[in-house]
């Protein structure tokens, strides 16, 4: 995979490569810590997949293969930044401090959100493709009005890049020079739709036509993703305007647990990408360059295992909410139809108020 356009700092074999514009700024400890996060979110993802298989989740959207893209981007964020994810940003949520079990509330179908987005400065997941890109730009316009040095980052996929909302958000970000970073994970597929149907040219080039820079980064190279994202965020915070980042990566698993990718893609493609595993290359680097030993890796695996165990317990403990809660927060203030609905539900004995 030699690609002039692609920012890469670490080859699939874990060898460092130079880049005229970007250099890795991280020391061994920091790299190890990125690796740790990747291991944990991979484990989180695997645990969620099995929870789904066991009927404990309604659905799961795996991120396997995209760990470097998400951890690289997520770790480049500062606490004061704000993020607008889709349904697949579990790695970002992890970096923002959202408890893993909260990420699973939507997938357990007990909530349509799952966490307090203001508290974590990480918005609730957006399922309607593209909608969140405009929210991010609007939020960024608020940041501008507050005169704050904060950046906003929004996430979308190669598929969502075709939606009007995503494209309008480019127009607006450019027009208002909004402090926003568009982070597009091109995982090659939108369910069964290959990214080649969304664009005949590399996606990152779209940005330039709207008047702001686009960068394509090896999305399986956590060092490169981190540096590219950090630079874009730093630039946004000081008034440098928007950047689009295309993280070129691959969705190793199915679109969701409801999906059957064997119907539309060939094994050989998946095999090729296996050799580009985002975790393996960092591990190779850590072993070779920083002499990290098996014990340290074991320790990370233990941590991940503990997280997974706790996650499982937490999820199993998530009961069915009292039906009456469906009326909560439908409106911010009193509403006759809400009162009516509550009353009817109580009369029918559906909610006993026992909860």
């Amino acid at each position: 995979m030699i690609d002039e356009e692609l920012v890469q700092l670490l080859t699939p074999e874990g060898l460092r490569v130079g880049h005229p514009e970007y250099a890795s700024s991280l020391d061994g400890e920091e790299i190890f810590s990125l690796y740790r996060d990747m291991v944990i979110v991979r484990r989180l993802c695997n645990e969620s997949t099995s929870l789904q298989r066991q009927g404990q989740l309604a659905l799961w959207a795996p991120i396997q293969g995209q760990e470097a893209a998400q951890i690289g981007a997520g770790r480049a964020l500062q606490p004061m930044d704000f993020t607008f994810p889709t349904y697949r940003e579990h790695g970002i949520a992890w970096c923002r401090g959202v408890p893993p079990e909260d990420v699973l509330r939507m997938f357990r179908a007990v909530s349509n959100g799952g966490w307090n987005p203001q508290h974590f400065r990480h918005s609730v997941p957006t399922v309607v493709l593209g909608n969140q890109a405009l929210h991010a730009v609007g939020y960024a316009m608020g940041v501008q009005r507050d005169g704050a040095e904060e950046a906003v980052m929004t996430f979308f996929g190669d598929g969502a890049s075709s939606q009007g909302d995503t494209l309008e958000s480019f127009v607006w970000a450019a027009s208002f020079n909004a402090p926003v970073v568009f982070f597009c994970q091109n995982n090659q597929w939108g369910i069964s739709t290959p990214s080649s149907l969304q664009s005949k040219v590399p996606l990152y080039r779209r940005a330039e036509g709207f008047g702001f820079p686009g960068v394509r980064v090896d999305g399986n190279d956590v060092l490169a993703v981190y540096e590219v994202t950090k630079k874009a965020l730093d630039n946004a915070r000081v008034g440098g305007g928007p950047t689009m980042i295309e993280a070129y990566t691959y969705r190793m698993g199915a679109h969701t647990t409801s999906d059957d990718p064997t119907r539309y893609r060939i094994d050989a493609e998946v095999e090729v990408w296996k050799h580009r595993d985002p975790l393996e290359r960092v591990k190779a680097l850590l072993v070779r360059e920083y002499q990290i030993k098996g014990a340290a890796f074991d320790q990370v695996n233990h941590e991940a295992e503990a997280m997974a165990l706790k996650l499982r317990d937490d999820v199993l403990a998530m009961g069915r909410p009292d039906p009456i809660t469906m009326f909560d927060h439908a409106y911010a203030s009193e509403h006759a139809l809400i009162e009516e609905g509550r009353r009817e539900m109580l009369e029918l004995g559906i909610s006993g108020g026992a909860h």
Partner: protein
Amino acid sequence: MATTTMTMAKALNEGLRRAMERDKKVLLMGEDIGKLGGVFRITDGLQKDFGEDRVIDSPLAESAIVGTAVGLAIRGYRTVCEMQFDGFVYPAFDQIVSQVAKLHKRSDGAYTMGLVIRLPFQGGIGAIEHHSESPEAYFAHTAGLRVVSCSTPNDAYWMIQQAIEHDDPIIFCEPKSRYWEKGEVDLEGPSHELFESARRREGTDVTVIGYGASMKTIMRAADTAASEGVSLEVIDARSLSPLDLEPMIASIEKTGRFVTVQEAPHTASIGSELVAELTQRCFYSLRAPGIRVSGYHVPYPPTRLEEDYRPSVDRILDGVDRVMGFES
């Protein structure tokens, strides 16, 4: 009572001004609302006085106007979005239905979607297509939204302020054909709460319920009816979702008959809702079924024909005749 006379356009302008003075987080956003003051001049002078950061001339994309207002709401701003005309709100429909209406719920109350979408609606100005639509039913049907409509300068002045202060997202329907009509505005305090209906005329024979531009036509119809010995009680719904039914029920318990008036076609509309609710609640008082006078089930016609599409005095009186014709 400190009243003053102004047009509805001016009343909205003044109401926006007061809301902006009161709360620095209030922003206006829309197409041509700044330098031009909006195609109807509702925002005239506001950019000059509050700056380009608070009165935002936007690129031309309605989904983006609403979608960025959502982001601004998350950041703590209260944006009043102007849709240039009713027919141009549809590109923003997805953001309104999937995000504006649902984010307060989805975030378990962490996000306040305190934004107002101003919609110059209904016909009557002889415009070309897409400039005379009545989309209120779409929004009334959507849980998570509230929908109101003003029909007088006084209401315009107060309701826009009340809507901006309110924490729920509000679709604010302005009868554009009445923008230039003058009326008394009481600067001291509102006559009604935002979500209250208002009785505009007392009567005994038939209750007529309407909103927006239809109110004036209904009042004219009531005059005509009176001269023919029929006494109409007239109610301005004002809040289209939720409906304020109590005053309507009280009226129908007295009259036993009602007619609803709107410009939108009747299928699955505000009129349908009024008939359904009021029939259920006033069943024993009703001496005739509720009759809906509405636009026809056709795309809004070329406007040389619009006065035959919009409920006219004649058509309203025909509706009155029909409910009076039922025996019970």
